[in-house]
């Protein structure tokens, strides 16, 4: 039976932070491990701040990344500045690791287009967050095609959730990546839930990684809550793509510890026991226990880190709050490279309507 084709599953650390086998050589670099920890801790704290800002009406709907900090952190770290990220909408961790500023992320979710106009040098060609499901997979293939056409040693990395793997865009993209051997890596954040629809209702495939096989490309699973496993396998996939050896699909098996977005209430459809069980596997505590075991971390360092990150986050929130209101005319100014004369009058009308709203233009 074809579906019995085995898919590899990589995990280096168990829930207790104990190595479950031989670790890759790069784990000997303590700074890298500490960077992972610092970054994942930042992501969680910032994510909590975003939810709090939504609850107090300071930003709009927000898609929390709670529980998925390891995936974005690892893949953002595995990419070089020359590579291009084509993200989905639950990619706060990846965007932060790529160098996108917290105030830009706040501006985006706060309803301001300037949040995707970042100037972070490592992310200048990265795509903005993609809301229409799986469409970004096609864009990633286009970006990778551009690298292929220009024969540049660069890699396109695209992310999506488990639900997105059901869409034609995803499957058409896998198919093209295989037939053109594109330098692209597909990272599936399988967090078990597409809003209220569980993984079991999404696909009869034994794993989502199996979907790569029909496209003729390698697919594999990693423990998405083990930052070491995610970093190791995605780094290999990226370097493989860079070397001209083609695409890879990496399914990161994780769990959405939060609601789908701040507009969702997962308690309507999700068992409380399942959630509390999932918390036992979350990624930050696991790495922390490993670092403790290695003598690299202690309570004092943790408290210092929390204080530092808190200050950084508060400064970013302040920067976001003090962002001056955008010129409403920008909606026309960036419609085309040069605004056709025909739209000049509409632009003026928009300015008048915006002015009439006065200070509540953003409300």
């Amino acid at each position: 039976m074809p579906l019995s084709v085995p898919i590899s599953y990589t995990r280096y650390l168990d829930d207790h932070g104990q190595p479950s086998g031989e670790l890759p050589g790069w784990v000997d670099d303590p700074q890298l491990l500490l960077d992972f920890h610092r970054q994942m801790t930042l992501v969680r704290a910032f994510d909590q701040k975003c939810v709090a800002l939504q609850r107090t009406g300071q930003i709009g709907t927000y898609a929390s990344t709670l529980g998925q900090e390891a995936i974005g952190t690892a893949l953002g770290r595995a990419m070089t500045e020359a590579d291009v990220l084509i993200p989905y909408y639950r990619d706060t961790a990846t965007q932060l690791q790529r160098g996108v500023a917290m105030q830009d992320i706040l501006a985006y979710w706060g309803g301001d287009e300037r949040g995707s106009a970042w100037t972070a040098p490592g992310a200048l060609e990265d795509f903005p967050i993609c809301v229409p499901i799986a469409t970004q997979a096609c864009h990633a293939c286009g970006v990778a095609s551009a690298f292929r056409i220009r024969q540049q040693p660069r890699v396109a990395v695209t992310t999506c959730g488990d639900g997105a793997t059901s869409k034609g865009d995803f499957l058409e993209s896998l198919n093209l990546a295989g037939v053109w051997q594109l330098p692209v890596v597909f990272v599936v954040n399988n967090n078990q839930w597409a809003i209220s629809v569980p993984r079991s209702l999404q696909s009869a495939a034994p794993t989502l990684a199996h979907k790569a096989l029909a496209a003729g490309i390698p697919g594999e699973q990693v423990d998405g809550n083990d930052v070491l496993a995610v970093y190791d396998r995605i780094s290999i996939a990226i370097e493989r793509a860079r070397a001209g050896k083609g695409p890879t699909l990496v399914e990161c098996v994780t769990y959405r510890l939060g609601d789908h977005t701040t507009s969702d209430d997962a308690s309507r459809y999700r068992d409380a026991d399942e959630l509390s069980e999932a918390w036992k596997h979350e990624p930050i505590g696991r790495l922390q226990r490993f670092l403790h075991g290695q003598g690299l971390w202690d309570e004092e360092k943790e408290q210092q880190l929390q204080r530092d990150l808190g200050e950084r986050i508060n400064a970013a929130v302040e920067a976001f709050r003090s962002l001056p209101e955008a010129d409403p005319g920008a909606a026309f100014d960036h419609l085309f490279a040069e605004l056709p004369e025909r739209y000049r009058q509409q632009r003026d009308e928009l300015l008048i309507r915006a002015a009439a709203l006065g200070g509540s233009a953003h409300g």
Partner: protein
Amino acid sequence: MAERKPVCMVEAINLALHRAMADDPDVVVLGEDVGPNGGVFRATVGLHERFGFRRVMDTPLAETLITGIAVGMAAQGLKPVAEIQFMGFIYAGMEHLVSHASRLRSRTRGRLSCPMVMRTPHGGGIHAPEHHGESTEALLAHVPGLRVVVPSSPRRAYGLLLAAIADPDPVIFLEPSRLYRSVQQVVEDDGQALPLDTCFTLREGKDLTLVSWGAALKETLEAASRLAEEGIDCEVIDVATLKPLDGDTILASVGKTGRCVIVHEAARSYGPGAEIAALVQEQLFYSLHAPVQRVTGFDCVIPYARQEMAYLPDVDSICEAGRQTMRGNDQ
């Protein structure tokens, strides 16, 4: 030495593609059968041999993908020219056109942009199977951020396609398939682009303005000739760039004649004719001698080949609308 022999529209499109690819290494062509086969209408003949598989790409048979990868390529600064084999198959790519191509520049406030062209055959009248005779340009022209262009002669196809490829934003280039091989013109292969925001006045006249685009201009021009025999002097405007619409040229003409008939193949309701009629009445209501009329396709599914000609605007209907308009407010 520039080409001097007359060419048909599909050959003019081919000339423009060769010229654009030779002049700019960022121009790439992709789609179904565009490679060694040269496209099902032969618009891409010779490109694969001349520019190689990296720049002339036969894609898998997936229109969503074709549109989506064009967005990704364009975001990297390439100028992809994607072909969708018939307009009836463009809908699979609509999400990428509406939600991405048209707004990538806007949603990144200019950090990224999408200089892509999507070419597709447009309109009926070639006795093709169902889904091959669509005129759904209004669906596209309604989308902010897209440009929609429809040429009506070999020369305009050449110049407008060069302009579409050079444009820094997404352009939908609709090629009237009924005109692909029916008309020949000498086209100077001089690399000269035409403006993307200007209507063409094909015939000057003082009594009545006929506004059309694409293949329907053939019947519109014939109607103008017939009406001239009856002493009605028609001005004929080829809109050519549906979005953004060159209102100035249309308004100047109708301001002069005081009468306007709009002719299009597309279904009547919510068709581009409604937009043009609205513009005319907004600006010229008090100088109109007669209500603006439309001669259009119908609000039914375009019939299969045996009866499709009954759907398309014909010379008689255009003439009758013209005569009615001349009777105007006195009728």
